[in-house]
């Protein structure tokens, strides 16, 4: 299962809910959820913990738009729009945690 998150972890609970419910699989952080992929963010420890159970990806153009391309947490995998499509196609199911 691919879990897609698009909200900042510090102002919305969608990532937190996803992490507490989902059993495993892949997580793609897009739009304002890319803030969760940045080092120094208060959510960092939770993401590092989640990386033991999930493969975590971040949409690179969204990271660049927010001026944080150089702050991505090591081990989070950057993808472009083509990579987004591949993730969606390679997973049997997708869930967007809006």
């Amino acid at each position, binding site marked *: 299962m691919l879990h897609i998150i698009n909200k900042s972890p*510090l102002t919305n609970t969608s990532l937190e809910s996803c992490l507490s419910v989902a059993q495993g699989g892949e997580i793609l952080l897009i739009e*304002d959820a890319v803030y969760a992929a940045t080092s*120094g*963010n*208060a959510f*960092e420890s939770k993401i590092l913990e989640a990386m033991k159970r999930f493969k975590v990806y971040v949409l690179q153009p969204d990271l660049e*738009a*927010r001026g944080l391309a150089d702050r991505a947490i090591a081990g989070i995998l950057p993808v472009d729009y083509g990579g987004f499509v591949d993730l969606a196609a390679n997973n049997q199911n997708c869930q967007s945690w809006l």
Partner: protein
Amino acid sequence: MSDIKKFMFVNRKAPHGTVYALESLEVVLITAAFDQDVSLVFMDDGVYQLKKGQQTKGIETKNFSPAYRALEGYDIEKLYVDKESMEARGLSEEDLLVDVTVLSRTEMGELMEQQDAVLSY
């Protein structure tokens, strides 16, 4: 002029993900055109609006972040950032596009009390 009022704009949303940040900026510029006393506050995810190095080419939207640098030219020089919000996001003053005054929550609250109008974005 005697009818100058103190307007405070409270920005609490990240840029790009929603239109709030850009809308706020546009209203701020309109307010400044009427020679009002304008203060801008950035707290919670609103601090991200001021992050240096934003490059929106990849998401094909307008990069309005350089406009924060132009505010000075409209005599908008009162920019305040909430310390707690900035630190929770791993950011420091050096990461920001413009010179700001960093305030504690208590100081922010006091400043809010002094306003004639507070607009929230």
